[in-house]
């Protein structure tokens, strides 16, 4: 029988089918972080349970740790230090590998899970973080869970679930100049809504996806959750195998060859049936930015905020009114030229080396506009070290950006920091929710290049019109 990529991975992990239609699914890897990892491990212990296989469990510090240079365990998060110390102690007690603050392999979970090849094609990887879908870029199932399910996975190495429906999103043709994976996913969500993928695992495919480098594929899959998808994934190819080769936990030698032979089957069969299909022409995608308080409030950089009479119904008009009231904008307004107070490059969406390079190409020889707070938080120590080695860090600093230590940072005022009430921030992150980056802060999501261009101009700008110096 023809199978999709998702079928092949899922079916190979079914431990047993239960009477109620759900299945127990084997989980290959579990990644913890300090926001909930210590809570889960403590709760497990209080219930008299143990971690079934600690060698498959990893932990890092990213959600609460701050990102100031010279940081330690103290953070601006109320009570934050206790989360960090609890994560450290419970991980050590349970025999779990912890990539602690200062470790050269430290960073945001989804970055380091890939960088170290802890996630491999065909694996199921769970983490109590909704952006675990990022790892689908490796041809794995990245499964975001809550704390209770995290305890379940710790104790049983399984999760209990119903198999989701499946949606194929095909991006045909090539992307235009200056268009990135971030623009692809914002375009998709803008067109099909923030609940457009609900109940479905989404396979991204097509020429424009095949042409993306691995960093960009992580960005594309990262925001599958903003589409309400169960997860997002991409069939592994030679780029994937080249990315994995020789990373810390990657199989070696003969075993790696055997893996590749197996992984080449991880693709949807030509006749495989999907519950739904969406096709998008890559040439139709412009650099994309959000104007409102949901990722579905996305428009082309040179587009306009919707007019009230363009919308389908009263609910949509009420949604528009509320979003625009929060954002301090008007219907029909263009975003180009809109002054910004802050610019942030970071997060599990866009904090990889190629993201930083894209921003640095525009920042080189230029300065951040007066009065703008610009911050770059590399996603991992590995990215930070590489960026410093190739001179990118200096470009950011010379331009007037703060250059931070790795972590989730200002994506959601992790580390206790936020932008100010009413401040308008252009951000390479994934959520423009009300208050996400600070109470009453107004967030516009965009690609790193668009963020860099706005930081230089002091207002929202089409990065394509800014040529490298």
């Amino acid at each position: 029988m023809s199978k999709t990529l998702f079928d092949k991975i899922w079916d190979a992990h079914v431990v047993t089918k239960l009477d109620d239609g759900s299945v127990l699914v084997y989980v290959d890897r579990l990644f913890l972080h300090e926001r909930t990892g210590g809570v889960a491990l403590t709760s497990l212990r209080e219930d008299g349970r143990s971690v079934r296989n600690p060698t498959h469990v990893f932990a890092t510090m990213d959600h609460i740790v701050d990102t100031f240079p010279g940081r330690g365990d103290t953070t601006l998060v109320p009570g934050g230090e206790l989360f960090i110390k609890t994560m450290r102690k419970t991980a050590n007690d349970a025999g779990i590998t912890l990539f602690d603050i200062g470790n050269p392999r430290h960073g945001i979970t989804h970055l380091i899970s890939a960088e170290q090849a802890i996630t491999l094609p065909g694996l199921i990887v769970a983490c109590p973080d909704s952006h675990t879908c990022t790892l689908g870029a490796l041809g794995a199932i990245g499964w975001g869970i809550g704390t209770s399910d995290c305890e379940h996975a710790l104790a049983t190495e399984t999760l209990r679930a119903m198999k989701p429906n499946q949606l194929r999103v095909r991006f045909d043709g090539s992307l235009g100049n200056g268009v990135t994976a971030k623009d692809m996913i914002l375009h998709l969500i803008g067109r099909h809504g923030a609940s457009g993928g609900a109940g479905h695992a989404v396979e991204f495919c097509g020429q424009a996806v095949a042409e993306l480098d691995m960093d960009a594929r992580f960005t594309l899959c990262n925001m599958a959750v903003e589409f309400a998808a169960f997860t997002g994934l991409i069939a592994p190819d030679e780029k994937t195998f080249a990315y994995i080769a020789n990373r810390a936990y990657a199989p070696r030698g003969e075993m790696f060859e055997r893996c590749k032979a197996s992984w080449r089957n991880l693709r949807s069969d030509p006749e495989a049936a999907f519950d739904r299909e969406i096709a998008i022409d890559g040439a139709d995608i412009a650099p994309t930015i959000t104007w409102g308080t949901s990722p579905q409030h996305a428009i082309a950089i040179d587009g306009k905020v919707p007019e009230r009479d363009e919308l389908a119904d009263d609910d949509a008009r009420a949604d528009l009114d509320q979003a625009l009231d929060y954002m301090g904008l008007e219907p029909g307004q263009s975003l180009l030229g809109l002054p910004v107070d802050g610019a942030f490059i970071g997060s599990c969406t866009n904090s990889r080396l190629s993201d930083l390079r894209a921003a640095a190409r525009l920042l080189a020889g230029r300065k951040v506009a007066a009065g703008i707070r610009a911050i770059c938080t590399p996603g991992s120590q590995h990215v930070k070290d590489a960026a410093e080695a190739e001179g990118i860090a200096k470009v950011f600093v010379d331009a007037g950006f703060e250059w931070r230590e790795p972590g989730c940072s200002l994506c959601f005022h992790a580390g206790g920091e936020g932008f100010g009430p009413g401040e308008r921030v252009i951000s390479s992150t994934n959520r423009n929710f009300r208050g996400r980056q600070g109470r009453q802060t107004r967030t516009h999501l965009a690609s790193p290049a668009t963020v860099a261009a706005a930081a230089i101009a002091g207002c929202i700008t089409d990065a394509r019109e800014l040529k490298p110096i």
Partner: protein
Amino acid sequence: MNAFDRHSGICAPIRIDNVDTDQIIPSREMKHVSKHGLGEGLFANWRYRYEGHTRTGANEEFVLNQPAYAGATILLSGRNFGCGSSREHAVWALHDFGIKVIIAESFGRIFMNNCARNGLLAIELPAADIDRLQQQTNASPQTRTVLVDLTECRVHAPDGDVFEFTVSESDRHMLLGGLDYIDYTLKFASDIERFVAADRRRRPWAYL
């Protein structure tokens, strides 16, 4: 976990789409290394007034602060309730505040799972049904209560309308029995052992 079979309570409407978990509890309100005591941070951005970052009191306009809705245990909302961050604190905060049931057009997947794991019932109904629930309760929320019956999968509105809903059989079974998911799965420990032994031969690279 407490069993859930029937619940009768006061309905409060938050009829907007995409109520994300950052709204349900902002990350700055998740102050304790614990699942308890989070009710105070529930809907903090909406429930309180602020000057800068400092709370200055209750926002009387917010539905859960209105006397008419005091003691509400059932929330009515729109599409994609609980989308966004996986933080189970959102459910712990709702639970701590006293919410038992959320009726919405659809839910974020992780949030819905988290509800079931904590004895909260997340019910999906069409917008028209939620409209009627709201219309029939709004005039006098304290007396016009709604009965949610998980044994029959029905919502009884004050005027006698009955709305049928479906939940996953798995969650229904666990909620009705107040069962613990981990205990339940551990009954299949030998299946897990067998799977791992066979899988280790099939995919040796997956085992560290």
